[in-house]
């Protein structure tokens, strides 16, 4: 018998995940992105707001690797600094949505009956408005800013997590080990927190990983239409928006931030896919 690890399941998931090369690459990319987001201002070659009228729309050079924009600001620096805004939108919005959604879903799923009915009818109303329309409407009504965009995205995506959590809890709730816990006098709180939630988490983890990507994507769209991050703060979506008017002359200006969005979203999706396979109990045997 091998030496036992305490976190055997976590290790199992990691072992499964390691087999998926793409997922590992995605994980590395995401870690790098987080590092860039944290260290952004320190590693950017130029201050992101430094203007230089003489060098507007400069081509790439040793000094400005990716060129400059209409105010002569260094594109690479703005991309690096902008990483934080984009990731914040993804991560914080999903955190808000997941916490609210999972709480609602867990309560609805566990208690059932009228609690469940009430939650589900409210979610029906919630979901009757197409998600992105809801996000845009919220962002527009709250007023354009990074913070409001995050709130709008967070609130707009709650129902998905709530429903998934509820479905997952409903499945787990029927398992005999929950009844077994009740038979040894475990209280509701213990059953939910110790037995149901951890076992219901697998699909949620996948959903959250992919949700971060989806929120980065939606966040960049909000910024693109002017409802997210406001100038002069750099953000990928906003940079595409700025570059839109000069697409004809300087297409690369729009190209780079778009690629950044794509890479981060792709990394989230790849990792999500990898996790789905790694967490799938059917592949266990």
């Amino acid at each position: 018998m091998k030496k036992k690890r305490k976190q055997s399941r976590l290790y199992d998931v990691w072992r499964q995940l390691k087999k998926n090369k793409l997922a590992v690459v995605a994980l590395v990319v995401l870690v790098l992105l987080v590092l860039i987001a944290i260290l952004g201002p320190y590693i950017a070659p130029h201050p992101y707001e430094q203007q230089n009228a003489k060098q507007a729309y400069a081509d790439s050079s040793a000094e400005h690797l990716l060129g400059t924009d209409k105010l002569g600001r260094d594109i690479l620096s703005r991309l690096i600094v902008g990483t934080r805004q984009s990731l914040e939108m993804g991560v914080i919005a999903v955190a808000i949505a997941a916490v609210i959604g999972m709480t609602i879903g867990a309560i609805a799923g566990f208690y059932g009956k009228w609690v469940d009915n009430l939650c589900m009818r409210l979610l029906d109303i919630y979901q009757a408005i197409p998600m992105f329309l809801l996000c845009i409407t919220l962002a527009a009504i709250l007023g354009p800013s990074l913070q409001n965009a995050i709130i709008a995205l967070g609130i707009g995506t709650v129902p998905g997590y709530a429903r998934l959590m509820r479905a997952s809890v409903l499945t787990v709730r029927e398992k005999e080990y929950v009844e077994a816990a009740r038979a040894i006098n475990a209280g509701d709180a213990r059953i939910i927190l110790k037995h149901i939630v951890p076992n219901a988490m697998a699909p949620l983890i996948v959903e959250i990983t992919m949700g971060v990507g989806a929120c980065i994507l939606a966040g960049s769209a909000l910024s693109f239409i002017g409802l997210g991050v406001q100038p002069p703060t750099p953000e990928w979506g906003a940079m595409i928006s700025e570059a839109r008017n000069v697409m004809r002359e300087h297409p690369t200006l729009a190209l780079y931030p778009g690629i950044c969005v794509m890479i981060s979203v792709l990394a989230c999706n790849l990792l999500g896919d990898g996790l789905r396979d790694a967490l799938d109990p059917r592949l266990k045997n």
Partner: protein
Amino acid sequence: MAALLEVHDLMKYFKTPGGMLHAVDGINFTLNEGKTLGVVGESGCGKSTLGRTILHLLDATGGQVLFEGRDITNPNKSELHRMREDMQIIFQDPFSSLDPRMSVCEAIMEPLILRGGMSRADMLAETRQLMDTVGIAARFENSYPHELDGGRRQRIGIARALSLKPKFIVCDEPVSALDVSIQAQIINLMLDLQEERGLAYMFVTHDLSVVKYISDDIMVMYLGQMVEKAPAEELFRNTLHPYTKALLSAIPIPSIHDKKKRILLQGEITSPINPKPGCRFMARCQYATGECACQQTLVECSPGHFVGCCRYEAVKYEAINNMEESK
């Protein structure tokens, strides 16, 4: 000797869109310390619901459960806690009755933690002791359920049930999911434990040969009702209810010598939703007559042998006649 457990007219109904589902409908029995009651029936007859209702994992719709003379039908929280220490359950499916995220040690220790009042070291010692009792080697202490086979998982389930030192255990098909050779190991373990600790079992199963093996009394259920109850030997020797007869004859015997004639039942089990008064087996019974449509009462035809058939005497003769005719 005072009865350990008395169940009077216990009922459990479920509301369904189609009407009331009578899962358990007026069950009576008593069980003494150290004895085993086997509960047999086909899927959907309410045998699992019965066990869960007695343990108050489900709220009873009606009736009364007495444990050591105390009424525990509708316990308050502290009564419930005390009662669960005396009454435990072993589940059918060792694959789903253990939390996949708990190691063997954690799973067995959980009841002790919940009861409280023990130091961690004591609990650990107790857990190891239990593992030894049920025959799980100490090296599996930190294994997770998915790393173990069905037999070992069921041993963990037994250890969990034993940890609070109960007097009565509901065994809900504990060996149905296991292979024959493992099944025999678990049955022997359970018999050993019963002898050592004076446990009373309610052994729920669909397998009549297992139940004969382990039980003192056997109760046969059909659509939520008890159709026959007798001491194990008596039930097999002097089978009275037509359903029990059919059930017994349907079991394939692993022997090529005593080939018996099967009683083939017509049709399939009907739905226990809004049942009509009268015998619920009537539709499939070859002996049914008009009087079967009336409410059936249990008759004690010999000491300890109850049968829920108004025509059991007549059936006895008809069966003998049939046999002679076929000869």
